């Protein structure tokens, strides 16, 4: 990329960008502090962004800390991803009612103005690309998903301060924004001041950018970006060895580690509700007193017993089977189903697990005694060692 492609704005410029996107018909949304966490929310300008906030993350641990840091984006990801912006947690599929003896079935239009997302992380854009592979896959693309996805304007920010649960470098999804954005920002704050490097990833991104007052980035600023990314890569809280990872898990479906982790897992589904790629949904019909029938799609979790319900019983009745389904799906069978990893390394499932189960640790434990317990093994069932549960 040449120097001409990277320009510089300050926070007044960022405010102008948000205003310009609103003028263009987008509903600006970005990270906001709510209920002790940084989560997506509606924003009017830079004043709503989490300036000075940092997060401290570890397995089962998330805390916000405030400082006099001038930066707006000096934190990792919070519990809620941008998934909900393109794949709402509850959506109406159709409703049907009787009129003059005939049944009328009506599908709702895609509601709301297009969204402009300010301040998504590279791992979150990677998660959207994963969802594209599931819900945006012709010829059976989800039309509501496609519409929301195509019209959303995405402004990504390079990740400067990864959290204790992050491992995007292992998954190749960060900390730098590579593609999938309309505009990409890098937030710099040094002797030369607080400012953003901006580059466009799409024509419409370039058009919006051209209307703002900018100046070209200097060599020093481009170098500062490289330094920032290098520090971020070194600061990853976790790592995951992805070498033949799909094969590793596929040949260890009867590994005793599944029993060990099942003894700690509460099957609460927190990991699935914070995951930016989990796409499972329940399709349910309800009827109101007038007889109108409404079909809805609602986010679902493979940790629910009902998820695998099949005439009278759940196929995956044990926590062991359900944890194994979740983890092998993310890291192994997603490749078979969609030709890509289902995990982007955001670390949310680790931070938000109430008992601190860490899938990078689970995968490493299986790798440590790889190949001993394949599908044909009879060694299944006996837990080895003591489970890490409180007495």
């Amino acid at each position: 990329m040449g120097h001409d492609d990277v320009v510089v704005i300050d926070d007044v410029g960022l405010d102008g960008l948000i205003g310009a996107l609103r003028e263009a018909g987008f509903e600006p949304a970005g990270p906001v502090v709510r209920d002790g966490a940084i989560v997506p929310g509606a924003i009017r300008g830079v004043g709503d962004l989490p300036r000075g906030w940092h997060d401290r993350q570890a397995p089962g641990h998330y805390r916000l800390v405030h400082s006099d840091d001038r930066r707006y984006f000096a934190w990792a990801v919070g519990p809620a991803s941008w998934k909900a912006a393109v794949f709402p947690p509850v959506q109406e599929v159709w409703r049907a009612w009787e009129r003059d003896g005939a049944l009328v079935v009506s599908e709702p239009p895609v509601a709301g103005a297009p969204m402009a997302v300010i301040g998504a992380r590279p791992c979150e854009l990677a998660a959207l690309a994963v969802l594209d592979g599931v819900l945006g896959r012709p010829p059976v693309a989800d039309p509501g998903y496609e519409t929301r996805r195509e019209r959303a304007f995405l402004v990504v920010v390079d990740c400067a301060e990864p959290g204790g649960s992050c491992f995007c470098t292992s998954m190749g999804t960060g900390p730098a924004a590579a593609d999938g954005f309309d505009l990409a920002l890098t937030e710099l704050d040094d002797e030369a001041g607080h400012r953003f490097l901006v580059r466009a990833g799409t024509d419409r991104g370039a058009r919006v950018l051209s209307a703002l007052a900018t100046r070209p980035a200097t060599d020093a600023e481009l170098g500062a970006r490289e330094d920032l990314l290098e520090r971020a890569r070194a600061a990853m809280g976790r790592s995951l060895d992805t070498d033949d990872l799909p094969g590793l898990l596929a040949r260890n479906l009867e590994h005793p580690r599944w029993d060990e982790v099942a003894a700690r897992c509460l099957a609460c589904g927190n990991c699935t509700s914070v995951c930016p790629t989990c796409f499972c949904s329940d399709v349910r019909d309800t009827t109101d007193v007038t007889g109108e029938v409404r079909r809805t799609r609602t986010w679902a979790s493979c940790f629910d017993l009902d998820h695998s319900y099949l005439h009278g019983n759940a196929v995956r009745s044990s926590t062991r089977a359900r944890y194994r389904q979740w983890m092998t799906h993310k890291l192994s069978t997603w490749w078979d189903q969609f030709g890509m990893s289902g995990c982007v390394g955001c670390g949310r499932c680790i931070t938000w697990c109430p008992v601190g189960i860490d899938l990078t640790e689970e995968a490493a434990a299986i790798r440590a005694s790889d190949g001993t317990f394949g599908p044909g093994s009879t060694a299944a069932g006996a837990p080895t060692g003591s489970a890490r549960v409180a007495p």
Partner: protein
Amino acid sequence: MRPVLHRVVDRRRESDDVVTLALEPQGGRPWPFRAGQFHMLSAFGVGEAAISVSSPPGDAPVVEHTVRDVGPVTHAMCTAPPGTLVGVRGPFGTDWGIEGAAGDVVVAAGGIGLAPLRGAIHQLLASPRVERVFVVVGARSPAQVMFGEDLEVWATRGARVAVTVDVADRGWRGHVGLVTSLLGPLEYDPARTSALVCGPEIMMRFTARALLDRGVEPSRIRISLERNMQCGLGWCGHCQLGPLLLCRDGPVVTYDGAVPGLLLERER
């Protein structure tokens, strides 16, 4: 995900808890399907269930589904009188691959597993490349033997048909035992045999094993699998079986590959 309205034009009882519904689309012809594929059927106000098509592909003005009364949706289906409007989405999933069938074909069904095979058997008997068709059917009791008229028609059209029940009654003069006990005496040529199997997973596993032991290629044994299905489009995630999304990669899959290690026993 919008269903097409169909009217129930005929309801035929197959056994004490199984009925066949003939559905006619409102203002049109049935959408083309292949034997082995399924539809998502909606009982309005109750819900939706995945049900295989049980009539053969062709020009018929109606499409048939054979439903066992096992839950709220299937109960509503089984008790829907002619004239009822139901919703139909699909067809979804893979089929039995009848176009490629040749030589000997063994069709093994357990219980309501005969329903998704019914259309396939009609097609096999009409196929010039298929030499012999062996149909083995198992049911819990004589009263549970479905498609009695079809079994007779298939036999007169040249199929070798054998029926067994788990538990006989006074009037039963036929075979008693598992479906696999019917497979042994069949004079198929394993080297030129393909098999279509549908029934409970344990039945399919033992049937496949018996066929494999005789030398049938695993890639030529097709089984039809079932999981919780809620969308039919690969979006809802409920029908996963290891690497497969069964609404998309199934319900009909070949017996080779990863599947044998992943059937119900391994997933619990």
